[in-house]
């Protein structure tokens, strides 16, 4: 059903004697914080005219865990485990973003092997994130269970790799400023290769299930359109921005880590609707697999930690730094001000989830209330990062 037929549907004449459905009276609905599809404890106050959304006000703060305040009261190393819990699906990327900004602050060099390991782990995290997102989004659309089961099956394989490397499935706490915490255990690379080689099979199967699916196309195409101008002016980053056709990927723009050494393409969308955002994830997964293969082939031997860095009792010089990476959800930045003591004077996180959420109302207006969940799912938020 296209948008135009839906609009006709809502303009159907009311039965005689009944007030018209389009008499301008709005129904206020509070969706969340306990809602099966709000991806955590997120609440939206929606004003509905019939089924059509006329106003949408997000309510945040149900998971505000004082991340920044705790970061200012603990040492630089002490914040590292807390960054795991920001975007709890992609802990490795968060570690990298934080390590990068501390390295920028103190001017620390990172050994080559550690940089390669960071690329491998961050890209594996991207696989986890995008696969889970596809599963969650489809289950929001009513495909209960099956796609999520498929996605979590792949996720478990990658979490096994994380666990054997860092000791924890989700909260890896693996990277340190100046390198990584420990080297790969024996046999890890072979297992990782097996996971990466098996992933295209899952992706083909998944794509076959979703791309030609009429229900999915009807629910996502022309729904939640985001223009390139609005996306740029609102500061949207990540797959949501690229789905609107803007070629902006920090891996290419900043070239942090060793990304300039790898050959990969940045997929771009055309329409900026939910379908484009969904397919952007599928296409990015394919590119990610290419990066992973290149990085695994080129991984050099050597130390994984800069021996000059004392990560305990770490005191960077006075100054400030902003480090940013292309996390799976968008630009993840950490801003640090140092006054020369053992803990940061100011610690600020630029979460992609929160900033990508600012255009939710613009995307939802004029769509039905059932589409709100699809649009929210296609933005890809994690409340741990939105509220911090």
């Amino acid at each position: 059903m296209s948008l135009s037929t839906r609009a006709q549907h809502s303009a159907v004449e009311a039965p005689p004697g009944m007030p018209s459905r389009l008499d301008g009276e709005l129904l206020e609905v509070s969706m969340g914080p306990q809602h099966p599809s709000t991806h955590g404890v997120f609440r939206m106050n929606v004003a509905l005219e019939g089924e059509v959304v006329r106003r949408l006000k997000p309510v945040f703060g149900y998971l505000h865990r004082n991340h920044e305040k705790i970061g200012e009261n603990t040492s630089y190393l002490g914040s590292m485990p807390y960054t795991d819990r920001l975007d709890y699906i992609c802990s490795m990327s968060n570690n990298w973003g934080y390590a990068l900004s501390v390295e920028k602050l103190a001017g620390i060099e990172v050994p080559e092997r550690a940089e390669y390991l960071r690329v491998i782990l961050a890209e594996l995290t991207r696989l986890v994130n995008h696969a889970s997102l596809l599963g969650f989004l489809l289950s929001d659309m009513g495909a209960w269970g099956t796609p999520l089961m498929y996605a979590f099956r792949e996720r478990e394989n990658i979490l096994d790799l994380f666990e054997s490397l860092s000791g924890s499935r989700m909260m890896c706490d693996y990277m340190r400023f100046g390198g990584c915490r420990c080297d790969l255990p024996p046999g890890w690379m072979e297992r990782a290769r097996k996971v990466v080689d098996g992933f295209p099979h899952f992706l083909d199967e998944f794509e076959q299930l979703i791309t030609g699916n009429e229900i999915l196309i009807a629910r996502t195409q022309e729904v939640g359109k985001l223009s390139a101008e609005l996306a740029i002016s609102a500061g949207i980053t990540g797959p949501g921005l690229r789905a609107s056709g803007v070629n902006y990927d920090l891996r290419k723009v900043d070239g942090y880590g060793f990304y300039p050494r790898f050959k990969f393409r940045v997929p771009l969308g055309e329409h900026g609707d939910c379908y484009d955002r969904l397919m952007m994830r599928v296409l990015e997964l394919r590119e990610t697999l290419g990066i992973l293969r290149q990085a695994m082939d080129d991984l050099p031997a050597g130390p994984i930690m800069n021996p000059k860095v004392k990560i305990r009792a770490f005191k960077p010089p006075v100054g400030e730094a902003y480090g940013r990476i292309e996390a799976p959800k968008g630009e993840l930045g950490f801003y640090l001000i140092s006054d020369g003591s053992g803990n940061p004077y100011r610690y600020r996180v630029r979460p992609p989830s929160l900033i990508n959420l600012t255009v939710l109302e613009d995307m939802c207006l004029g769509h039905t209330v059932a589409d709100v969940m699809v649009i929210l799912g296609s933005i890809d938020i994690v409340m741990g990062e939105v509220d911090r």
Partner: protein
Amino acid sequence: MASAPPIDEGLRSELQKQGIWVTSMQELYNWGRRNSIWPLQFGLACCAIEMIATAASRYDLARFGGEVFRPSPRQADLMIVAGTVTKKMAPQIVRLYNQMPDPKYVISMGACAISGGPFKQGYNVLKGIDRYIPVDVYIPGCPPRPEALLHAFMELQRKIDGQKLTGTGKAAFLDKTVPSEFPVPAFGAHDLEPPANADVFHPPKIERH
């Protein structure tokens, strides 16, 4: 800690060989209840992802009869408090608990739900959900592994198995004098009012000898 069988075990085994199955109402009732626990589909933070992983294919909570996650508290038996409870969220959790029909159980999953965990020093974090609602099983971990959640689930089944329907010491949900709803805390000037429900919250007393 299953309750004592209604008849002698040896006699029962003999009867079973003849195709006669003897049981008590209590055993049958508890058997049915413990094998169809419907959890509330309700995630707060990181632990919720592990809760989903537990319900997904590898760990498969369905083996224990707990795969039917209900989004409505009216249809749920079990609340898994999975994640950090903030002071803004705590009133909603108590309200959800009050909306669940009896008999109802609570699993406090992860360090945050038990005590505030790594975020305990935060000004907006509740130091444990057991300040407002009674908790049946606690699982530590940050986040607990899916196996740990399965273990908590089995512990809960054991608890249900031991619940008596009649006589002294019968289950709390059958006792009219035991409340099944608890007052919802309100936002005060500095903290939630009251900071803890004294009827529910019994912090351990530390005694030195």
